[in-house]
């Protein structure tokens, strides 16, 4: 009988043989971008040798420019929370375009249960409901918001998994529906003056705390639970997942629910941070969230990428935004640069795929 061994291999389990993780490339890109801004700060004549990253004026105890670092991460935290969810959707080879309007709709709905009765001793001028909905425990608006998100996610997921509507179309429809709901909820008027505990959800660095702790939780979930494994399996080979006995439809609904609940939570945090909820909130958030995921190495064809990558992708966007402000280039250039980077990220991803053994 012929020898059945394959080449020189033999049966091994070698932990050191794990390949160079994709996340390292993104980290490298992040560092390169920071270095570029650092150099620009030194060579551009109008910059007066400012440093992008380091504290050159002795304003902080650390060697880094703490204020800038805080702003970089604070700016991307709320969209980052959405990106955590949309990453999971993209890993299943889907897409969710409805998250931006969901932020707005959830902000409106949640805050109407988080308003305070008296503003400076006068009745709340923006009160939407009667006194019964005033000064409720902060858990009420959060639960209302998350429930609304779960409901929207379940609808998205059901249309996509059971009625086989392409994710792009299903969530595009939901995009418009949710914008409509956000406008309809209070007749277009903003909902304002939340309770102190509601405000606390979005105060100071709280968005960053939410973003990073949710990122840690979902990193663990995707890596170490059946939910995560099935999410990757469906994106990698949906037919194989189905034949392996995974309930693909139910799992997809679950993933869209998780994603929408994260977007809904982002809406609560955003409205708390702004102390007001308006129907126009969260414009383009869905696109920036997708951009963070894609820059972070989540493949649009599904099956590949990680939460760590998405967090790094969020940081890349944050650094670019902050860097352009630093070198005093206005928003128009930022948008152009971000667009270019998104396209570059997808090209890189395809290049990597082609070059696999």
């Amino acid at each position, binding site marked *: 009988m012929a020898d*059945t061994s394959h080449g020189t291999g033999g049966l091994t389990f070698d932990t050191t043989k794990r390949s160079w993780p994709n996340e390292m490339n993104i980290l490298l890109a992040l560092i390169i971008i920071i270095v570029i801004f650092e150099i620009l700060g030194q060579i551009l004549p109008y910059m007066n040798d400012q440093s992008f990253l380091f504290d050159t004026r002795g304003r902080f105890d650390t060697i880094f420019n703490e204020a800038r670092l805080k702003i970089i991460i604070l700016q991307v935290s709320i969209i980052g929370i959405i990106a955590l969810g949309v990453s999971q959707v993209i890993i299943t080879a889907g897409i969710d375009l409805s998250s931006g309007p969901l932020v707005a709709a959830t902000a409106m709905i949640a805050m109407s249960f988080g308003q305070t009765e008296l503003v400076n001793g006068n009745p709340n001028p923006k009160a939407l409901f009667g006194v019964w909905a005033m000064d409720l425990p902060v858990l009420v608006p959060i639960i209302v918001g998350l429930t609304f998100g779960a409901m929207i996610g379940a609808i998205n997921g059901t249309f996509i998994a059971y009625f086989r509507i392409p994710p792009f179309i299903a969530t595009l429809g939901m995009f418009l529906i949710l914008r409509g709901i956000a406008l309809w909820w209070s007749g277009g008027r903003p909902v304002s003056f939340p309770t102190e505990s509601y405000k606390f959800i979005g105060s100071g660095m709280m968005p960053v705390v939410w973003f990073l702790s949710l990122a840690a939780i979902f990193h663990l979930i995707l890596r*170490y639970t059946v939910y995560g494994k099935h999410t990757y399996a469906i994106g990698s*080979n949906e037919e194989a997942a189905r034949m392996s*006995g995974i309930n693909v439809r139910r799992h997809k609904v679950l993933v869209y629910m998780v994603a929408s609940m994260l977007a809904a939570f982002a809406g609560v945090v955003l409205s708390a941070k702004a102390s007001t909820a308006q129907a126009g909130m969260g414009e383009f958030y869905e696109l920036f969230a997708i951009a963070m995921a894609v820059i972070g190495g989540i493949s649009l064809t599904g099956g590949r990428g990680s939460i760590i990558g998405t967090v790094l992708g969020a940081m890349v966007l944050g650094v670019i935004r902050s860097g352009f402000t630093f070198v005093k280039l206005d928003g128009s250039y930022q948008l152009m640069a971000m667009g270019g980077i998104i396209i570059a990220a997808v090209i890189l991803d395809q290049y990597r795929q082609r070059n696999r053994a």
Partner: protein
Amino acid sequence: MSDNVVLRTQALTKHYGGVHALQSANFEMKKGEHVAIMGDNGAGKSTFVRQITGVEQRTSGNVWLYGEEVNFAGPLDAREAGIETVFQTLALADDLDVPDNLFLGREKTFADWLGPFRILDYKGMRKATMAGLEKTGVKIPNIRNTIQNMSGGQRQCVAIARTATFHSRLTIMDEPTAALGVQETGQVENIIRTLKEQGEPLILVSHNMRQVMDLVDRIIVFRRGRICANLKKEETDGQDVVAYITGAKTQPEYEESAT
């Protein structure tokens, strides 16, 4: 019914709309037996397999596994009943590694009360994977490699190793060597021989006459959605089988179906 029968189907039928892909197939196999299913493209071989394994729902007919009538609602049911299938289109997820693929859909877990968020037992799965691979004599350089980095033969071996890992009661292989080179085909055939020695019953769907004559005890020929011959290996040869496949011959007991 004898306890010796692993699988029996009666009048198994599948229609896809107006297409009668499988018509009243009566099939029986005994313990330890290796049976080949042959036939032209579209003869109903894969359809037959899909009905037994619960991937599709049959239009009518009955299936018994070890004397027990079974109605699989899905592939997982069939698996739980002990039918392990290596599909023609490899049911492997490219971005996952070997243990992940072996245990896909039936992961070893901790803390099952967490529902879909129950925790994976990576160590246990790796251990069982190694054991399964050793049992079948499959060698793979590194089980932590994702499937996409593997050769066709290695992929096929991973798919087959599932069988050994889960102590199946019936193994079904749908064209396991169709896309493989000579050396890789030899490797897969060796695994099949190992299964024979261990007395594991097997249904092999194949186009490869040499392979079939080499490996199995009995050959069932499908033609246009119907079974047209049931041949013992000792009583037939390649030319004879081809005659049945092409329609030049039909066994008398299947005469009525050979329209």
